[in-house]
């Protein structure tokens, strides 16, 4: 951590079967990425209620990542697809609220894509750092 640098608060909600396993694989392979993201495990991204994400932004999250299996590979047939539709709609709501919709990201990382997980982490952190602190946090101050 560089001294004095702003550290974004980014939360990731990830599915047990693909993305969580992919994140574990990045670990086994010792692929390095920035430590700014905190993960919450759910069984399927289908569990992700848009309200969880709204709550996260209201609490001051600078970015939210939702990551599941690739389409067609969902452990529960199509939970990831249903989640993706919700996230798509939610992005337009966020825009209306003045939150840049790039702060919410949905990705698809399979259990064998440890390297991709690390890339996603790099990219999400980079995107959020470029966007700066969430406007909600600025309002709070």
């Amino acid at each position, binding site marked *: 951590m560089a001294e004095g640098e702003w550290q974004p608060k980014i939360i990731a909600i990830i599915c047990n079967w693909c993305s*969580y396993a992919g994140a574990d694989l990045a670990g086994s392979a010792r692929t390095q990425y920035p430590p700014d993201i905190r993960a919450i495990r759910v069984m399927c991204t289908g569990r*992700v209620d848009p309200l969880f994400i709204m709550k996260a932004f209201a609490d001051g999250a600078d970015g939210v990542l939702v990551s599941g299996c690739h389409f067609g590979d969902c452990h529960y047939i199509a939970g990831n697809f249903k989640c993706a539709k919700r996230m798509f709609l939610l992005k337009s709501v966020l825009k209306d609220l003045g939150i840049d919709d790039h702060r919410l990201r949905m990705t698809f990382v399979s259990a*064998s894509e440890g390297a991709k997980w690390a890339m996603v982490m790099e990219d999400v952190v980079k995107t959020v750092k470029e966007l700066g602190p969430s406007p909600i946090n600025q309002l709070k101050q």
Partner: protein
Amino acid sequence: MAEEKKQPRIGVFVCHCGTNIAGTIDVESVKDYAATLPNVIVADDYQYMCSTPGQAKIIDAIKDHDLTGIVVAACTPRLHEPTFRTATKEGGLNPFRFEMANIRDQNSWVHMHDPEGATAKAKDAIRIAAAKASLLEDLYPKSVPVEHAAMVVGAGVGGIQAALDLANAGIKTYLVEKNPTVGGRMSQLDKTFPTLDCSQCILTPKMVDVGRHPNIELHTYTEVESVDGYIGNFDITLRKKARGVMSQDEATAKGIVGGGCNGCGDCAAACPVIKPNPFEFGMAPRKAIYIFHPQVVPLVYTIDFDACVKCGLCVEACGEKKAIDLEMTDTFETVKVGTVILSTGYDMFEIEKKREWGYKQFDNVITSLEFERLICASGPTGGHLIRPSDGETPMKVAFVLCAGSRDNTGVGKPYCSRFCCMYSLKHAHQIMEKIPGCQPYIFYMDIRSFGKMYEEFYYRIQNEGAKFIRGRVANVLEDAKTKNLHVYAEDTLLGRPVDLEVDMVVLAAAVQPTENIDPVRKMFGVSCSQDGWMLEAHPKLNPCGTTTAGVFLAGVCQGPKDIPDTVAQAEGAASAASIPIHTGKVELEPYFAQCLEEKCAGCGMCISQCPYSALDLIEKDGKQVMHVTEAKCKGCGTCGGFCPGGAIYMQHFTTPQIVAQIDAFLLGGEQ
């Protein structure tokens, strides 16, 4: 749902994992921090939490401090959640009052160069886990009975072995094969390394065994159409493809006494349609009504309806046996099984994509599997190796190893195909044995002779006179007049270019997952690796299992392996698949959705979200409410993520629990 309203009392245990965690993360400060968190009564650390003394710490702490929830900050729940759940249970708590913070796989290992960042992340992870642990409840796994039957998909040598093992263990086994016969790739091989057994000689008895085993129901020319259910109770619908020919059993069932196919072949003799035989890679003809080879099991002819002109000559030739029905259509059958083994095998990489080696451009460039058929006594040439261009006997043959394997150019496959070195050595031996004076040249990158008696086999082939040239072949060009081939490479041991004129080139092509296997894989909910091979549950500790409970893997569908390894894995898979069946029941994780009826508006929007049709609307106390059929619910929570009224209570992943985790991270626990 929670009965007791006791203030949560959480114990946090931080694992060093030797230096795996403690080498990066400041465990001492993490533990001290954990002790300050809301509801945390005790925080401790230990070298290896998963060890017996580590688990004893949890068990003792539950008793000493009257804990209601446990957090272990260690590796990943995918590895040790069951371990610590057991310890939690031994301490006298419900095992579902355990939560894990992943501070190794997703922290210390991936932030090795940022100890400060990793330590901060570990503190957050524990805070998040403790917030969830404070809200965990007692849950009770649902026990379901297991159907006393199993299915094996794919009847190559792996599938055959798995089916025989299951059947011999007294389990009714459905063996499903998409081709008209069992045997798979192994039945196309001539000899097997390093013992040089005749492949058919050791395989045929097993093929016959599966054909007549009383516990095996063989379904050839059959594909999996759909899969429903879960471990213990899979309902699998099979599509029995229209074969056009009835077996003797089928004829008897239809009342045709003494009828049905007896494999006499009169039909094929009469058939006027000639097509290339795919079993012989097009090097031999076959009729529209055919069998692959004389040893097929079951010995029943099959009509290739794409080629058949329905002239009816075969029906005439079949005569009184009345085995042939040109109007036959696909039929469907649903069977119920407890466990499934996938053994769907492999295909060869389309080596013509590697243009530089001239396959399909030059007649005398062939693949190793074509070589197997040409050298095989039951093959199209009766075992005489000939040059396809002129039928002459080749006297100089070049073998190109790693043809498309270990290839990062983007055209080939990055992995080692694992058995090509050994079969190419075998091929070299075979030509030297069959054709006196014939000289094999083996172009290799490394010879990977890693198995039992394999290295010795390599020495033997060297001593027999095979010439080894280390270097990847750059190019193969044809002499247009003689049809001889020039092999260009660099001999990297001598450091000089090679231009070798040979009569024939054999490409040891890479292997890849069976074509069109993805729909089958997805029906069973099995993930795949980046290369498309089916993914095992754990590469070391669970190589036969998958992330779908009750579905196991055997053979090359999981990754390239030779016959001994395939058979060994098949036996492992059969053993694993028989355990739930013999136990008679399995416990399902109790992550079922429940309906909070006072909140449910009866809108029914959740019903369309459920992939398993587990939800219905029922009338209760005069209003419509959602009802969950627990046996069908798999706990994905897709209904809960969608319910507009927050009426769905997703056990172990409840909305309050997830929101508490979000708050714990972002608000530092102040809620």
